[in-house]
């Protein structure tokens, strides 16, 4: 009973957010439309982190690596090859994220011995940091200055510039990606991932190739991060080394933790909440707003470790709801899940 209603609550929230995003531009000035576009692109990035940490239990402290690498790739395509077509640049961004994430996963996850949580966290962090330093020192990539003046994205003869067009492009990509992630985590693969997260050794004894499962999810999340990076580069009109770095990587983690991990929608809620609160605070208290924001985040994380979403979905329920919803009455699984969570 409880579980069904938790699933319903999540579904209602998802639908409500979708409707709000769809009609929002009608109520906003152009400037705010651009702001929300940026928030949606960052939500895509937070989604990729939730997928690896919330569902597969891989602590990726380097999601910005895929975001930034894809951003640089499309910036170079636009600058040096004159390619700005959406049908080339977005698949390219996605591909760069996917391949790079697979390489990182092969290195960190697919070794002879299963890696520890700390090893993966530090490994991804190092990757992100190294890429940041590389970009700062490489003049082909503009060094510290990054690559400015990226021309607008095009679709045939049309230019997709910031504003309404880009807003709905970002929304479409976010919704499609969200739907794909939702399908993924509720599929058999998602169920196996929940198992891996909760008891990796047992899953291995069951015969699952645990590390391969993790590598798959990590690569998919990298692809999503890349997609976000491609969108971000054209939206902001420039790329710079911080897009690859540790600060952004940490920021992504905070977005997801603030909203609540392991629900997908929590990551989106986290980005929306943090960005809107900082936007409002920055206007109201120009000199001390970062301190207020910091305290607010601290309070949420101390008193609601499950993030904002835990108001709707108690921590112990989320695995069952989002992993086993399609497998009939939950009574049989309830005990096992409660024990595990």
């Amino acid at each position: 009973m409880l579980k069904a209603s938790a699933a319903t609550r999540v579904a209602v929230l998802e639908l409500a957010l979708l409707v709000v995003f769809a009609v929002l531009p009608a109520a906003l000035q152009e400037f705010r439309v651009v702001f929300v576009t940026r928030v949606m692109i960052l939500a895509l990035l937070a989604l990729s982190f939730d997928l690896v940490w919330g569902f597969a239990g891989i602590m990726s402290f380097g999601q910005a690596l895929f975001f930034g690498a894809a951003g640089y790739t499309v910036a170079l395509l636009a600058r040096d090859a004159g390619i700005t077509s959406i049908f080339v640049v977005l698949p390219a961004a996605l591909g760069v994220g996917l391949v790079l994430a697979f390489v990182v996963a092969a290195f960190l996850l697919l070794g002879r011995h299963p890696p520890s949580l700390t090893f993966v966290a530090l490994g991804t962090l190092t990757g992100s940091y190294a890429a940041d330093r590389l970009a700062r020192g490489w003049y082909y990539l503009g060094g510290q200055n990054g690559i400015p003046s990226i021309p607008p994205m095009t679709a045939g003869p049309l230019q997709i510039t910031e504003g309404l067009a880009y807003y709905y492009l970002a929304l479409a990509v976010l919704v499609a990606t969200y739907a794909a992630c939702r399908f993924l985590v509720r599929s058999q693969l998602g169920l196996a991932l929940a198992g891996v997260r909760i008891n990796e050794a047992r899953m291995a004894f069951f015969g699952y190739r645990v590390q391969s499962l993790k590598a798959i999810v990590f690569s998919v999340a990298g692809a999503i991060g890349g997609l976000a990076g491609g969108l971000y580069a054209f939206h902001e009109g420039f790329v710079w080394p911080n897009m690859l770095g540790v600060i952004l990587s940490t920021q992504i983690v905070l977005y997801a933790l603030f909203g609540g991990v392991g629900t997908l929608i929590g990551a989106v809620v986290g980005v929306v909440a943090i960005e809107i609160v900082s936007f409002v605070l920055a206007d109201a208290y120009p000199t001390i707003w970062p301190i207020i924001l910091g305290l607010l985040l601290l309070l949420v994380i101390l008193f609601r470790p499950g993030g904002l979403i835990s108001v709707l979905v108690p921590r112990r329920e989320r695995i069952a709801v989002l992993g086993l919803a399609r497998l009939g009455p939950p009574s049989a699984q309830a005990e096992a899940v409660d024990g595990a969570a």
Partner: protein
Amino acid sequence: MSETSHVTRRRFLQSTAWMSGAIAPGAGSWVVPPAWGQSGNPIKVGIATDLTGAIGYAGNANANIAKLLTKEINAKGGVIGRPIELLIEDTASNESTAVANVRKLIQRDKVDVVFGGITSSMRNAIKDVIVTRGKTLYIYPQLYEGKECTPYIFCTGPTPAQQCDEFIPWLIKNGGKRFALPSANYVWPHVLNQYARKVIESSGGEVIFEEYYPLDQVEYSATVNKIMTNKVDVVFNTVIPPGVGPFFKQLYEAGFQKRGGRLSCVYYDENTLNINAPHEIEGLASCLDYFKVVTKEDAPSGRIQAEYDKQFPGNIAFAAGSAATGMYRGLKLWEAAVNEAKSVNRDPVAKALDHAKISEGPGGPAEMVPGKRHCKMRMYTAVAKGGTYELVARSKGLVDPKEC
């Protein structure tokens, strides 16, 4: 497994919560409205500068001088009969935050002109939002490596030519022929050194070595050793804080100045002078468009400096290395251009700004070089003596920026 993962997660949350404040994105903004209310149609001037973050001291000096000038202009009745409304946004030393905040100026407030940006990476990040997408005029006030030739961007700080053409011959005469170019590894030192090397070689000097170090390197004993063993006469430094303090200290302790070496650094102004103890950088030479000591020989500079010190006492100095002088020059040149164009629209103002002149400013008069969007100005060479600067050379008239 389940237990440990639970604990790890919670511990992780608790241990990382503190970071949220430190890295939270975004920044503050405020508006300085014109002092009187009857005129309903003020000219909106946007300032985008680093009020917070690593170079906050420089950004605040920029904002201060803009406030001072706005007050002054409005007290005289504004520009073309309209008061100026100043809108200040923080670029927070963070390019992503900066783009979001500059969009506020362009898209929400619809400002008529934007001044600001200090680092080149900041200029690169925001210029598109302002000029290409925003169709607004942009004036960049900082000394920089040159080569910014985008239409509608006007630069009012010194270029490599202005900082090297007269300075390097002076260094050769007052230091020696053997130069070392220790540098931080980013764009400005690379491009500046390219130009400096040309001037050094054409003036009869030679470059013993040109090396680039990570921006956060603070250990320079290998570099100091190289300088001492190769009998370098002049260190033309572009290492920046935080590395520059330890570097100068180590160089002093190795006895570089004692055996007659000349230290030089073209971004050194009154702010950076305090990084080291005075005796460690005794004799350091710098070349800028303004030093506080200029006030003794140029009355208008003295008036500006006195007014600034009166309105903004404290430790945010009005100095050339932090773009504050470029900001002053930019605002006054823009005011002159608007007065000539009788409009604040981009094209007529840009056309008038192309040949705008001011007869007074920090360091003296200044004028735009037609078609170049860079600014001719006087340049001064100063040497650090006991914690202040002493002027040792000044340009004859205005120095050409030689850009675009």
